C-alpha cells in the first residue's frame, strides 16, 4: 500500500512540471500583452512600450520561463492587474467559495441521485425507472448555464424565494476567517448567517449539480441492477434475510463502489460547470474569477489561478485513486 502511494506521489512531480510548462506556453500564446489594457482608454502606445521594457516582456523566452519558475516556486503568483491584489490572496478567497459550491453540488447530486437510482433499479422497467432515465438524459442535455438562468428566473426573479446573486447578503458584516462561509458560521454559531449562506448556495448548487445528478442516478441504477443478480445477493435472500437488510448490507454497499469512483471523476465537470454557474449567479468563486481574467487579459491571475486549479485537480485525482485502491484491494497490485 505504501509503495503504491509513494509511487503515485512521485509521479506528481513530473506532472506539475509539465503543467507549469503548459500554462506558461499557453499564457505566452494569448494574443496581446498585459500592458495593452492597463489603463483602458488612457493607454497609449508609448505607455505600452514603456511597460514592456520595464517588465522584460521583450526578454528571451527561457529568461522569462526561469523567472516564472522562480517566482512560482516561492508561491509568488504576482499581483492581479485588475484589482492590484496579490493573486494568492484572491485565491484564498475565491477557492473556498468554489469548493463550497462544488461540495454542495455533489451533496445534492449524491443524496438525490443515489436514492433515485436505487428506487429506479428496484422498480426496473416501471414508470419510475423510465422517468429517472429520461430525467438523467435531460440533465445532461441542458446546458448548465441555461439551467442556472432558468432556476434564477423562476425562483429568484419570479417567486423571490431565493437570492439571485452573490454568496452572502450585501449587508452582512460578519468576519470570515477561513473563507469557508459555512464553516465559519458554524464555528461562530452564527445561525442567521448560516441560513443566509445556504440560501445563496441552493440555486447555484442545483444548477452545478445537475449533470453529476444525472450521472450518479444512472450509475447507481446500473450498479444496483448488476449487484442484484449476483450470487451473494441471491444467497442472502435464500437465507431468508429481510429485504431491507439485503438491500442495505449487500446491495447498496457493493453498488456504492463504482459510484464512489464516479464522484472523483466529477471534479473536471464541476470545474467547467463552475465557470458558467458562477457567472450567472455572480458567485465570487474561481470560475467567475478566471472568466473575468480571460476577458481582462489578467495574466498573473490566469497563470496563478490555472496552475493552482490544475494542481488541485491532480491532487484530487490522486486521492480518488488512493481511496479506490483502499476500497478495492485488487487494484493495488496491478
Amino acid at each position, binding site marked *: 500500500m505504501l509503495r503504491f502511494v509513494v509511487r503515485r506521489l512521485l509521479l506528481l512531480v513530473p506532472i506539475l512540471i509539465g503543467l507549469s510548462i503548459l500554462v506558461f506556453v499557453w499564457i505566452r500564446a494569448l494574443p496581446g500583452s498585459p500592458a495593452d489594457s492597463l489603463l483602458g482608454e488612457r493607454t497609449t502606445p508609448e505607455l505600452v512600450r514603456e511597460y514592456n521594457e520595464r517588465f522584460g516582456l521583450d526578454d528571451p523566452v527561457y529568461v522569462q520561463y526561469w523567472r516564472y519558475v522562480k517566482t512560482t516556486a516561492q508561491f509568488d503568483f504576482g499581483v492581479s492587474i485588475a484589482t492590484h491584489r496579490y493573486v494568492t490572496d484572491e485565491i484564498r478567497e475565491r477557492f473556498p467559495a468554489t469548493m463550497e459550491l462544488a461540495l454542495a453540488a455533489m451533496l445534492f447530486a449524491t443524496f438525490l441521485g443515489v436514492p433515485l437510482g436505487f428506487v429506479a433499479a428496484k422498480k426496473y422497467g416501471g414508470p419510475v425507472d423510465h422517468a429517472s432515465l429520461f430525467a438523467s438524459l435531460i440533465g445532461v442535455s*441542458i446546458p448548465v448555464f441555461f439551467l442556472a438562468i432558468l432556476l434564477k428566473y423562476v425562483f429568484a426573479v419570479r417567486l423571490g424565494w431565493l437570492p439571485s446573486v452573490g454568496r452572502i447578503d450585501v449587508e452582512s458584516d460578519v468576519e470570515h476567517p477561513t473563507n469557508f462561509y459555512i464553516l465559519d458560521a458554524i464555528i461562530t454559531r452564527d445561525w442567521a448567517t448560516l441560513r443566509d449562506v445556504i440560501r445563496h448556495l441552493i440555486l447555484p448548487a442545483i444548477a452545478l449539480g445537475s449533470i453529476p445528478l444525472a450521472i450518479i442516478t444512472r450509475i447507481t441504477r446500473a450498479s444496483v441492477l448488476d449487484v442484484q443478480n449476483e450470487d451473494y445477493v441471491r444467497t442472502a435472500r435464500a437465507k431468508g434475510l429481510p429485504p431491507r437488510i439485503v438491500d442495505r448490507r449487500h446491495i447498496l454497499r457493493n453498488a456504492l463502489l463504482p459510484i464512489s469512483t464516479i464522484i472523483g471523476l466529477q471534479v473536471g465537470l464541476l470545474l467547467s460547470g463552475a465557470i458558467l454557474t458562477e457567472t450567472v449567479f455572480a458567485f465570487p468563486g474561481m470560475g467567475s474569477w478566471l472568466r473575468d481574467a*480571460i476577458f481582462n487579459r489578467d495574466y498573473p491571475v490566469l497563470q496563478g489561478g490555472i496552475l493552482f486549479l490544475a494542481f488541485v*485537480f491532480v491532487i484530487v485525482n490522486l486521492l480518488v485513486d488512493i481511496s479506490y485502491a483502499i476500497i478495492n484491494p485488487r487494484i493495488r497490485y496491478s
Partner: protein
Amino acid sequence: MSISGRTGFARVVVCDDRSTRRSSEGSRVSIVEAEAVEVQLEAPSGLWRDAFHLLIRNPGAIVGFVFVGVFVFAAIFAPLIATHDVTEQNLPLIANGCCPGPSGDHWFGVDLLGRDVFSRIVYGARVSLLIGLVSVSIGLAIGLVLGAMAGYVGGIVDSSIMRVMDVMLAVPGLLLAIGIVAALGPGVKEVMIAVGLANVPIFARLVRSSILAQRDADYVVAAKASGIRRPSILFAQILPNAISPVIVTATLAMATAIIDVAGLGFLGIGLQDPDETPEWGSMLTEVNEYLQTAPFLALIPGTAIVISVLGFNLIGDGLREALDPKLRGR
C-alpha cells in the same frame, strides 16, 4: 460497468455493463477508467440489421430523430424558413426599452437590437450544426488516426500517444476549448478547431480500445496465421468492427459540441461577431440583466439548445443499446 466518454462538460454516457473492470491499458494515469464501450465482435452485417430493427422500436430514439430532424431541417432550409433578415434591426420597436415579446409579425419576438428572434434561432441552428459537424469530424479524423496508430503499432508509439491523450482528457472539455480559443482568438474557424481538438482524445481512446480488443480476436488471429498482411487486416477486418462504437460516440459528441459551442458563446469567448452570426449561446449572454423584463429572450434560445442536444443524446443512446449485444435484453 463502464462509462463512455470524457469527464468533460455535460457529456458522459453511461453504459450499463457488467462487472467493474480494471483497465487493460497500462498507459493510464488513473486507475479509474473512462472505458470505451465494449466492442462488438460479431461479423458486421448481422449487427447492422439487428441494430436497425432495435432502433426503430426504441421510442426514445424516435423522439431523438424527430428533434434532430427539426434541427437539421431548420439548419438546411434556414433561408426559406426565416421570416426576416437576421441582421435587420427594427429600432423603433425597442425605442421604449426592451423588448416586445412574440407577436404576429415576429413569432419569437424581437431582441435587444430589434432583430427577429425566430429568424436568428433558425440561422442559429445552421451555425450550431455546421460547427458541430466540422468539429466532430476534426476530432474523429485526428482521433481515428492517432488511435489506430496507437492500437495497432503499440509500443512506444502507443504509450506516448496515450500519455498526451491522458493529459488532454484530464482537462475538462469546456476548459480545454476555452483555452484553445483564448490562444487562437475568436472566430468560427477557431471555435471549430477548439471543440474539435477537445474531442480528439475521446475518439483516440475509443479507437485504440476497439483495435486492441479486436487484435487478439479469433478471426484476426486466423487471418494473420493465413498470412494476410497487417495493413490489410487492419482495414478489412478490424476497422469495420470498430466502427459501431465510433458512430455512437460521434453522435454523442455532436451533442457535446453543440453544448460546448453554446457555452463558449455564453461566456463571450466564441464567435467574433455574435451579433452578425447568430449563435444560441451568445443570445443568452446579455440576457441576465433582462430576465425581469424579457424572459423569452433567454427561454427561447435555451430551449433550442436543449432540444437539439437532447435529440442527439437520444439517438446516441438508442444506437448504443442497439449496437451492443450485451445490453440487449436489458
